[in-house]
């Protein structure tokens, strides 16, 4: 009898462990969880993330330190940081009381976008074209269908500044000829697709967007997902003073009525 009792498993020990585990889990998981210690900006509620993003943009506007701003924005772990900044800038732009914030957000988005573009595709851009590049370019042409929502109103090659990269500058207007912010633009080439948006340079115009073209690549432009232009190339030209320079393509689009 005594031997039987001694051979039984010590259930009270298992019960003790279970009781201890249960109490510990309630304490560490529910009553007093280990929050606080490791919360990063990525874990913040969306409204707080917006405020953190805004503060980053304002600090960038104050210091001009892009590396620091990029590191801070990266902490938020936005899928598309530039788009997050742009969207927030557009919301701020709609409120007359937050124009300063809108400008700061848009400026940071713009600089980050330009930085990304310069990293990925424009490493070979030189500020002065080579002799053999002069006048070796095609003129952009409309390639959209009749159902395209935006029509080319005007295009011009401006050749007045040396030591600048080859820019593509776009102005988009709605059907009432008002500049239109938030229009999604994409420029496709052999190197891939670059996404742009109007509204990142409110100091120019809410409907303005710009892109640095890589020499010898041919781009096609889509507006809100619909192809609009083809044959866009960096254009080397001569200034009035006869100096070689990269020209700037100016393209103006109107929303069809």
């Amino acid at each position: 009898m005594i031997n039987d009792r001694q051979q039984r498993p010590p259930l009270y020990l298992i019960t003790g462990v279970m009781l201890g585990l249960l109490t510990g889990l309630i304490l560490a998981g529910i009553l007093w969880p280990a929050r606080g210690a490791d919360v990063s900006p990525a874990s913040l509620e969306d409204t707080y993330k917006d405020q953190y993003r805004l503060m980053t943009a304002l600090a960038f506007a104050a210091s001009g330190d892009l590396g620091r701003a990029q590191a801070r924005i990266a902490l938020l772990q936005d899928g598309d940081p530039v788009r997050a900044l742009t969207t927030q800038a557009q919301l701020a732009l709609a409120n007359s009381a937050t124009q300063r914030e809108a400008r700061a957000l848009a400026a940071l988005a713009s600089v980050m976008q330009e930085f990304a573009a310069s990293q990925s595709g424009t490493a070979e851009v030189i500020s002065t074209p080579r002799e053999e590049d002069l006048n070796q370019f095609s003129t952009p042409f409309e390639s959209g269908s009749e159902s395209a929502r935006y029509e080319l109103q005007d295009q011009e090659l401006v050749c007045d500044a040396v030591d600048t990269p080859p820019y593509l500058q776009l102005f988009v207007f709605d059907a009432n000829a008002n500049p239109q912010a938030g229009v999604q633009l994409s420029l496709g080439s052999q190197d891939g697709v670059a996404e742009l948006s109007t509204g990142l340079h409110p100091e120019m115009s809410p409907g303005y967007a710009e892109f640095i073209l890589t020499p010898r690549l041919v781009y096609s432009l889509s507006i809100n997902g619909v192809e609009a232009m083809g044959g866009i190339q960096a254009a080397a030209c001569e200034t009035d003073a006869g100096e070689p320079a990269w020209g700037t393509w100016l393209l103006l689009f109107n929303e069809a009525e």
Partner: protein
Amino acid sequence: MNLIFSNRYTLFGLTILLGFLAAVYYGWGLRPITVRDASPSLLREDFRADYVLMAAEVYGADHEVERAIGALGFLSKNQEGYNPLVFVSGAIEFAIDAGYSADDIELLQDLAAAIQTFDPSFAASPTP
């Protein structure tokens, strides 16, 4: 007989303690923390200090102390009645310990000085 029971109670108590310690270690030490929708008051110390530095950078450019105080309210659980100087002092201490640059520490110190001399009868704006 009493000794046997006494040993059992002791063992029972020890197993409870063992289970408790294992659970606490798991809950606080091992379990990956996945906090979502957190409040800024829970930010880690270095992120808090960097946020204060952002406020100091902005203050260094615009010298609008009210705006800086409003921005620092972000770090407070309770936007009403917080003391912004506590955040800035904490950030300065962290900045010195963590080896921030002299320029950054100076920005933080300038902000602290501005807050100390700020007339508290003015209400702080709630947003940066």
